[in-house]
């Protein structure tokens, strides 16, 4: 009941934040000098054609009215029509957001799946070879420009020179996208029972997901390592050891559980940055997500698209953080709301 109230209260606080987000995007995107009608009318368009486009998208209205129209549409679940793609922004969302979410989720899986074991190994073998190795690995991670890593190591090495992994895109040419349920190919293909599509999609997502996750992988490794070291030095662990409980059991059962909380926190915080970092990764790996869509929207001043997408990303970010806080309470019963 308490937690429910807490969630409700947090949901309530989301409203002003999202409202602020719409205002901020609206102001910033309209502050970019230029006219979307001039962008999409084509290079040789007559003034009449530009004027017609401006009218048909309501761009001839004063800005406050445009904003009010956006917000009233928003309340009805309508994000407007993309100026550049001539179709509802919600349709574009349905097409591009899942790809980004899939990439982001996959990189979180990699982050945790690789980062936690590395952190544990590092903590258990503190100041010995595996630890040094892990620490070097993670310093490189947080310091590497994402786009550079993607270009140099991954595409050049694994795709072009070694040919172990497929290149850009989400699927090979022989595969059709699975039936749209969640939009995440890895899940949709399994739901559909198409295992070869699943493996193909998995092979495609590997490089970009690793590239995207590397920075956060390093952070997760560090966090797990330091909190493990702290926990391993505490009295109850020493007692457990003295009582002859096997070392592996101590590490996994006691120490690991205690290091979960900071890991969850950092994962939640990283989610927003992963979504943002996806822009560069998507560009490099030709990943058909919203990163490129947003960049193009900004380049074309496609206001409804910019507004729609930032709003959705903000919503995802805020919701994930709420989720993290709830998980927090779940993992740590001492915390009260």
């Amino acid at each position: 009941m308490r937690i429910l109230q807490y969630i409700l209260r947090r949901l309530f606080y989301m409203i002003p934040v999202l409202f602020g987000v719409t205002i901020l995007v609206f102001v910033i995107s309209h502050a970019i000098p230029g006219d979307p009608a001039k962008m999409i009318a084509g290079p040789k368009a007559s003034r009449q054609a530009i004027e017609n486009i401006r009218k048909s998208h309501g761009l001839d209205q004063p800005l406050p009215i445009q904003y009010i129209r956006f917000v009233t549409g928003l309340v009805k679940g309508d994000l407007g029509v993309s100026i550049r793609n001539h179709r509802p922004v919600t349709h574009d969302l349905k097409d591009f957001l899942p790809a980004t979410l899939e990439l982001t989720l996959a990189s979180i899986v990699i982050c945790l799946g690789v980062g936690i074991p590395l952190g544990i190994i590092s903590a258990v073998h503190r100041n010995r070879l595996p630890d040094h190795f892990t620490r070097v690995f993670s310093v490189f991670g947080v310091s590497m420009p994402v786009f550079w890593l993607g270009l140099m190591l991954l595409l050049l090495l694994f795709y072009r020179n070694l040919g172990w992994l497929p290149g850009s895109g989400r699927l090979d040419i022989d595969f059709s996208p699975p039936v749209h349920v969640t939009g995440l190919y890895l899940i949709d293909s399994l739901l559909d029972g198409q295992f070869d599509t699943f493996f193909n999609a998995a092979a495609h997502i590997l490089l970009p997901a690793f590239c995207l996750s590397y920075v956060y992988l390093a952070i997760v490794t560090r966090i797990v390592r330091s909190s493990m070291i702290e926990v391993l030095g505490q009295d109850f662990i020493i007692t457990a050891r003295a009582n002859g409980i096997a070392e592996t059991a101590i590490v996994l059962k006691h120490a690991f559980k205690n290091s979960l909380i900071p890991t969850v926190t950092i994962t939640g915080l990283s989610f927003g940055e992963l979504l943002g970092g996806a822009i560069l990764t998507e560009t490099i790996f030709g990943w058909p997500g919203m990163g490129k869509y947003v960049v193009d929207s900004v380049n074309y001043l496609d206001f409804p698209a910019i507004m729609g997408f930032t709003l959705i990303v903000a919503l995802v970010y805020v919701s994930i953080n709420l989720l993290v806080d709830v998980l927090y309470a779940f993992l740590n019963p001492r915390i009260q709301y």
Partner: protein
Amino acid sequence: MTPVIETRNLVKQFRIADGFLWRRPKRLMAVDHVSLMVRRGETLGLVGESGSGKSTVGNCLLRLLKANSGRVLFNGQDILSMKESDFHRIRGKLQVVFQDPQSSLDPRMTVQKIVGYPLRLQQGITGRSLEDRVMAVLKDVGLQQEHVDRYPHEFSGGQRQRIGIARALITGPEFIVFDEPTSALDVSVQAQILNLIGGLQKAHGYTYLFISHDLAVVRHISSRIAVMYLGSVVEASPKRQFFSNPCHPYTKALIASVPRPDPLHRQNLAILHGDVPSPLHIPTGCRFHPRCPEVMAICRKTPPPHVAVGNDHWVDCHLYT
């Protein structure tokens, strides 16, 4: 003698949880209609268990906390309703020494800066004359000249508390609150500090409010003692009467719980039943009734009256009506 400082029906509540939708905000009654006074040149000891609200009273007196209602009169002037700029002018007259000498000194400031601070901020004194005044007051509290350029972490606990006292003294205050000034110190150092505090009072005629949970310390330094229980003062009397004729059952229990050197007196120890109730749910009637060994039916319903049981001796208890 006229009181230097006096509180009338002082109330302080804390909001501990925000209200939202159907949930009302939670409030904690920390100080519940407290009336006290301290006369010029005397030391009033304020005792009570931790959480009884005694430090809150001290903080309200200094306007460190904003009281919800009631009045605080300093030399007859209500300082709670005063404008900030007016109060700023008399700030130097009211000073405080905190419990933890380590955390009450900004770790990033040297002794010179810490001690000279009130003068600099209130009277704009700087430079040579400020240094001289700092030197003088450091000498008063038993610190040396070469200490002025050091940081707090370079000192021992007792020395730090001397710095804290020096800071309180430099403006020449009329009234000083000591908020458990010795509880963080070793016993041997405690005595030194208590003697310093007492000596300073004798030399300069300061007025003290001495807050402590330790009856032994209070007994050592106070001329009058007040007892607080769950945000309210239950008994106040001159020191001699306080120990010779404690009236409130809580006071009796407190005195009885002080360990005595003589093992033969142990059987007199009164034992309080139960835990201190949460200040969120203050019992009806007399707030002490759930633990009181002499509880009566009326105690559960009616708040006790304020009764004079002797010269300058007040108690809030149904037993004396």
